[in-house]
């Protein structure tokens, strides 16, 4: 894979929390149009890694490039950069005082400066796409966990970003709702969206991922295709992880 094709590129990325080395010399590429799953034991740094992409976490050294733009550069408009990266949180983080429609159209109105009418039209379309056309005026408090997360995905998609990041999107959901969220994510992948996803859902990884990154103690220990990773992991720690979660 050449750098021209890379949507996200990590080069020599290091991050410390005080003296704790959270990310250790990360070098990796998420190519355009591909789905990368990041997995590993807790504390391995996977959430930290994905949060550095849109600068929810900062890094001490190294370079992160998203869609050709160096995200760490001094002169960059952080807000504009973030509007072009879709981020889905584990805890949904919907705004409870706004309806579903308002949550999804907020970015369009305030960052893209669209009119309310235009923004709401687009938002309605997105909510239809995630299967919530009847819940546009509902408030987060009235929605189930699965519904809230789908609204969150619609919200992340609203400003038409070229890349979507998912930080354990189904970990906070009751088991029966995991399926509906994964279905939306599968559709996105099938449409060619570049996705980087931290998850424990190995079934999803097997079906949808182009690449699986295994992380442990701040390092990417393995980068393989799902078949290679699940059948014959290269490292011992990966084997142990896989047997633990089965």
């Amino acid at each position: 894979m050449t750098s021209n094709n890379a949507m996200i590129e990590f080069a020599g990325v290091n991050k410390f929390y005080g003296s704790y080395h959270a990310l250790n010399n990360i070098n990796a590429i998420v190519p355009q149009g591909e789905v990368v799953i990041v997995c590993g034991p807790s504390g391995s740094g996977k959430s930290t890694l994905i949060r550095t992409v849109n600068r929810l976490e900062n890094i001490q050294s190294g370079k992160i490039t998203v869609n050709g733009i160096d995200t760490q550069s001094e002169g960059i408009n952080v807000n504009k950069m973030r509007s072009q990266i879709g981020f889905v949180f584990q805890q949904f983080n919907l705004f409870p005082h706004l309806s579903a429609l308002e949550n999804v159209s907020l970015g369009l109105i305030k960052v893209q400066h669209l009119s309310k009418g235009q923004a709401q039209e687009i938002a309605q379309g997105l909510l239809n796409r995630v299967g919530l056309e009847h819940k546009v005026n509902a408030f987060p408090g009235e929605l189930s966990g699965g519904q809230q997360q789908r609204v969150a995905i619609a919200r992340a998609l609203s400003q038409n970003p070229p890349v979507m990041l998912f930080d354990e999107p189904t970990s906070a959901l009751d088991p029966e709702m995991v399926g509906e969220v994964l279905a939306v994510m599968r559709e996105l992948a099938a449409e060619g969206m570049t996705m980087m996803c931290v998850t424990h859902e190995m079934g999803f990884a097997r079906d949808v991922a182009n690449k699986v990154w295994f992380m442990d103690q701040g390092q990417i220990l393995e980068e393989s295709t799902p078949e290679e990773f699940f059948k014959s992991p290269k490292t011992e720690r990966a084997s142990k992880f896989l047997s633990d979660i089965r």
Partner: protein
Amino acid sequence: MIDILQNYWLLLLVGQFPNGPLGGLAMTLILAVCGIGLAFPCSIAIALALTSPFRALRASAQALVYIVRGLPLLMFIFWAYFAIPALLGTSVPGVVTMLFALVIYESVYLAEVIRGGIQALPAGQTEAARAMGLTHLQTQRIVVLPQVLYNVLPSILSQFISTIKETSLGYVISVNELTFAANQVNSILLTRPFDVYLLLAIIYFTLCFILTSCVRLLELRVERGRKSLRLKTQ
């Protein structure tokens, strides 16, 4: 004591109005309402400064909070009493002085309440807003403050009740509020100070107690609203 109430209730309620300036309980309430009303926007500004990402702004706001909280309200009243006429060049009615001191004092305490609310809001809310590309101020205006102000509403109302009690300090600079009116009654009667002051105490007690009970009911409603949302995302 009932007879004092019967004879002087008008004086206690509205002072010497319409033969003189408005006073008594009416003035107390006006001072409290205006005080909190004017302090509210100031307190939001100070709270935003306290949580601002700019260190200089944060430090100056913290210094302001420290100074205002370290001084008695009476000190502010006297500062205002002397400073305002000196600055404006003309003499100023006691009510304005009192209001000025109250507004400065209350806006700092309210700011601390709001700041606590801002810091208690789950970090995920701010993160989600910033991840969408909203600026810091947009985040505060659209996501943070609407939620925070609703959450801290009971505390704001408690502060309003405190303000009612603080208006009694107007007595010291002869502002014609309830305590001053009671004092006037006392100087008319001279022989029944115990009854007069007991009556005064009862009036304040009734007023504040009713308001406090309302605040408690409001607290329960706000808690219920917050709990149902928290359970969903667990």
